[in-house]
C-alpha cells in the first residue's frame, strides 16, 4: 500500500535558496501535507511550513504544488502517479520568510484599509431581521478561509510588486462586495473600491476563482457585480445628478 514518494521542496530564506530532493514513505489516502510532516519528523526537523486544521478550513498551508497554488492539506497524493516527483515551492507573490513560509502581511495591511461594517439600528425588540435570500450572497463570500491563494495567483501583483500599493486583490474585493451587498450596512464603499483598492485593475481573467479551495465564484459573483456598481456610481448620469442633489449615491448609505 505504501510507497516511496519523491519530493522536491524549496528550502531557503530571504537571501535565497534552492530545491532539495527528498524521498519519504507515504501511505494510501494521504495528502501532500502528510508527506511534508513525515519529512519534518524524520529527516529535516527544522523544515518551515505553516499549517493548523489540516482539513481545509483555516487556510494556513498555502503553497505551490508543481507550480499551482494549492492547500497542502487538500491535495491528495492519489492525484499524482506513484513515480511522479512532486515539487513544492512557497507562494510566489509574497516574500519568503523561510522554506515554505511566506510573509503574508500584505493581506493584513489591506484588511485594515476596509472601512468596518456599520449597521442600521436594531428593531424595537432588540433583534435584527434579514431574509435568508439576502444573507446568502454575503455568506458565499464569508466562506473565504483567507488562504490568500487568490492573491498569490493574481497576475496584477504576482510579478508586479509595484502594483501592491494600489491594489487590494481578489480576497478584499470579496470583502468589499460582501459589505456592499449586506442588507443592513450603511456605508458606501464603491468610491474606495475603485480608487484605493484598485478594482479597475482587475481584467477578469478568473485565475482567482480557479484556485479558490472554497469554490467561491470570486470573479462572477463579487468582482463583476462590484465593477458594475462602481460604474453605475461613476458614469450613470441619473445617479450622478442624484448624488449632487441628495449628497448620497444610494438611499441610506454614506460614502466612506
Amino acid at each position, binding site marked *: 500500500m505504501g510507497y516511496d514518494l519523491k519530493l522536491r521542496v524549496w528550502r531557503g530564506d530571504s537571501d535565497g535558496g534552492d530545491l532539495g530532493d527528498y524521498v519519504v514513505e507515504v501511505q494510501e489516502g494521504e495528502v501532500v501535507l502528510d508527506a511534508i510532516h513525515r519529512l519534518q519528523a524524520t529527516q529535516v526537523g527544522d523544515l518551515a511550513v505553516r499549517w493548523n486544521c489540516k482539513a481545509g478550513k483555516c487556510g*494556513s498551508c498555502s503553497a505551490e504544488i508543481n507550480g499551482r497554488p494549492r492547500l497542502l492539506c487538500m491535495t491528495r497524493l492519489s492525484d499524482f502517479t506513484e513515480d511522479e516527483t512532486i515539487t513544492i515551492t512557497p507562494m510566489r507573490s509574497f516574500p519568503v520568510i523561510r522554506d515554505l513560509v511566506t510573509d503574508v502581511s500584505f493581506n493584513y495591511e489591506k484588511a*485594515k484599509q476596509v472601512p468596518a461594517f456599520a449597521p442600521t439600528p436594531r428593531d424595537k425588540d432588540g433583534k435584527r431581521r434579514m*431574509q435568508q435570500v439576502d444573507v446568502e450572497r454575503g455568506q458565499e463570500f464569508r466562506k473565504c478561509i483567507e488562504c490568500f491563494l487568490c492573491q498569490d495567483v493574481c497576475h496584477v501583483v504576482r510579478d508586479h510588486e509595484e502594483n501592491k500599493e494600489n491594489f487590494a486583490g481578489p480576497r478584499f474585493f470579496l470583502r468589499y462586495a460582501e459589505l456592499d451587498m449586506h442588507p443592513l450596512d450603511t456605508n458606501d464603499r464603491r468610491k474606495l473600491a475603485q480608487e484605493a483598492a484598485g478594482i479597475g485593475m482587475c481584467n477578469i481573467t478568473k485565475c482567482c476563482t480557479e484556485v479558490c479551495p472554497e469554490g467561491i465564484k470570486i470573479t462572477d459573483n463579487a468582482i463583476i457585480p462590484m465593477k458594475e456598481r462602481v460604474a453605475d456610481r461613476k458614469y450613470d448620469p441619473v445617479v450622478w445628478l442624484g448624488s449632487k442633489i441628495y449628497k448620497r449615491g444610494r438611499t441610506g448609505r454614506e460614502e466612506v
Partner: protein
Amino acid sequence: MTGNRMDSGEAPESDFGAGFETHEYDVVVIGAGGAGLRAAIAAHDAGAKVAIICKSLLGKAHTVMAEGGIAASMGNVNPDDNWQVHFRDTMRGGKMLNNWRMAQLHAQEASERVLELEEWGALFDRTKDGLISQRDFGGHRFARLAHVGDRTGLEMIRTLQQRAVALGIDVFMECTVTEIFTDGGRVSGAFAYWRETGRFVVFRTPSVVLATGGIGKSYQVTSNSWEYTGDGHALAMRTGASLINMEFVQFHPTGMVWPPSVKGILVTESVRGDGGVLRNSEGKRFMFDYIPDFFKSETADTEEEADRWYDDKQANRRPPELLPRDEVARAINSEIKADRGSPHGGVFLDIASRRDAEFIRRRLPSMYHQFKELADVDITAEPMEVGPTCHYVMGGVEVDADTQRSQVEGLYAAGEVAGGMHGSNRLGGNSLSDLLVFGRRAGHNAAYHAMKTSGSNTRIEDSDVKAAAENALAPFEGEGGENPYTIQKDLQEMMQRLVGIIRKADELTESLTEIEALKERAKHLTVQGHRQYNPGWHLALDLMNTLVVSECIAKAALEREESRGGHTRDDFPGPNAEWATTNLVLTMDGDSVRLKHQPLPEMPAELSALFEEKK
C-alpha cells in the same frame, strides 16, 4: 523582521539588553481564538491598551473549526426557550459538576453576545420571519444553536477578527509566550519569542488573559490542531494558579476514521441534529440500547417516536443519537469493541438514506465538501464512517465565576483553558457561547485590574528575563539525541492507550510511570537548525506544556474513583454521590503536580428548584 506584528511598528528600546524587545500594555491577551479576541475587544472597550499575542496568523485559531453553532436561548425557533432551560440543560449535560454560577451567567448572557456578533457583521442563517435561525443539538431541550451552515466557527472568528482590526488593537502574530512574570504574587509581564526570527520579546503588563484553548495534542486521535498543546494550562500552573476538573476530557463521538491522514477530524453533531442516525455493521440503530436512566424520561425509546420528533417536537421525545456527547462516544466505543464496527474501525453515520441530497448539501456544505475531497465519500449517497476523537478538555484554570480571575492577582482565563463552566461534560454549542460570554468578562475585569493598579509599578527582574531566555534556548544546548517529534508521538500513543475513553487504575498508574520516563527523555532533546522559523524548536518548547497537562489528566483520572461525564472508569462504573460534590484541584510544586480535594460550590435554592419541578 517582516510583517507579523500589527502594532505601530516602532522597535522600542529594550531595558533588558540587546536581543530583547520590550513593550508595555495594560492588558496582554494570549491567544486569538474566540475567547482571546472577545477579551481583547472588551478590554479595549473598557479603555485599556491591549495586545493580542498568538501562535499562528490572525484568523487561524482553532475556533475556525467549530461547526454546529452557538448555544443561546434567544427563543427564535421555540418561544418556550429561556435562560433557565439552557442553564438546566447545561448542568445536566455536565452531570451537575459544573460551577453553577458560571453556568448561570453563561445562559443569561449568551443571547446578547450573539446579537452583538450580528452588530459587527456576522451573517447567521435566518428563520422564515428573518430572525437568527437556531438548530437542534445534543443535550439541548430546544432548537438553540445560532449557526451559519456548518461553518459557524469561521463566521465567529472572522467577525471578531474584523472587529479587533477595526478597533486598531495591536496583534503580535506567530509569537509564542513561554513565561508569565510575577512580582510579589502579582502579574508583572510576559516573555515571548517571535516564531519568525526566534528573537525574544518582553511585555510589561499588570493583566494577562489566558485564552490558549485546550490540550488535544496530548492524544493521538484528536480534532485539535498543532496549537493545542496545553500552553495556558501549564503557564497558569507555573505562575502559581490552580487547575480543576482535568480528568474530564471530551471525546467527540463522531470524528473521521478513514483515510488515516484525516483520522480524528471532526464530523459535526449537526449531522445528527439534522436527521442523521448511527448504525452498526448489522445495520442496527444501536443508540436505543444505550439510553441511561438519567435521560430516559426525555429520550424516545422507539425508532418511530424518534423519527416523529423531527416534525413534532412537542408530542415526541428526542432521538437517542442526540444524547450528550459522553453517552454517544461510550456507546460507539462499545459497539466497536463488540466487533460490530465499520470496515475502518468506526460505526456508520447515515444521513444519505434519511434526507434528500439538496437538503444535505444546503445544511451541511462543509461536511459534504470534507468527505468528498478527503475521503472520496459522497455523504448524500452513502453513510460516513465515524469514531470518537479527542475534542475538548472540560478542565482548566480555576477561576472566579464572575471575573474569570485565577488564584493569581492579574491572571485571568477564558474559554477552553478555563475550568468549571462545563462540569464533567460539555454540551455541543456551549463552547462558542462560553468563549463570548467569558471572554468579554475576562477582558473587562483584566482592564479594570490594570486601571486599579496603575502606578503601582510591579517589576520584572533581570534575572527572571535571563532565566526565561535560557529555558527557551535550552533545546539547542542538549546533545542527548532525542527528537521532539518522536517524544510527542510516543506521548500521544501512550495517552490514547492508557488514559483514553475507558480508564482503569493499573493503566493510569502505568501512564504516570511512562510520563515520568518521557519527562526524563525530554531533558535530552536535540533540535536541528537555528532560531529562525524552526518548527522543531517550537515543538520542543510546546512539548514541555503537553507533558505537564498530560500528567494532570492522568493524576486526576486515577484519583476520581467513579464514572461521570468525560471520565469513565472500568473499575468504578457509575457515578458516586460523594464524588458528586468534589472537585479535584491541581497545582505545581517544583517539577511535580500536587492534587487536592475541594468541595463543589453549592447551588442556591432558587436554582436547585429548577431541577425538581422538571423531573
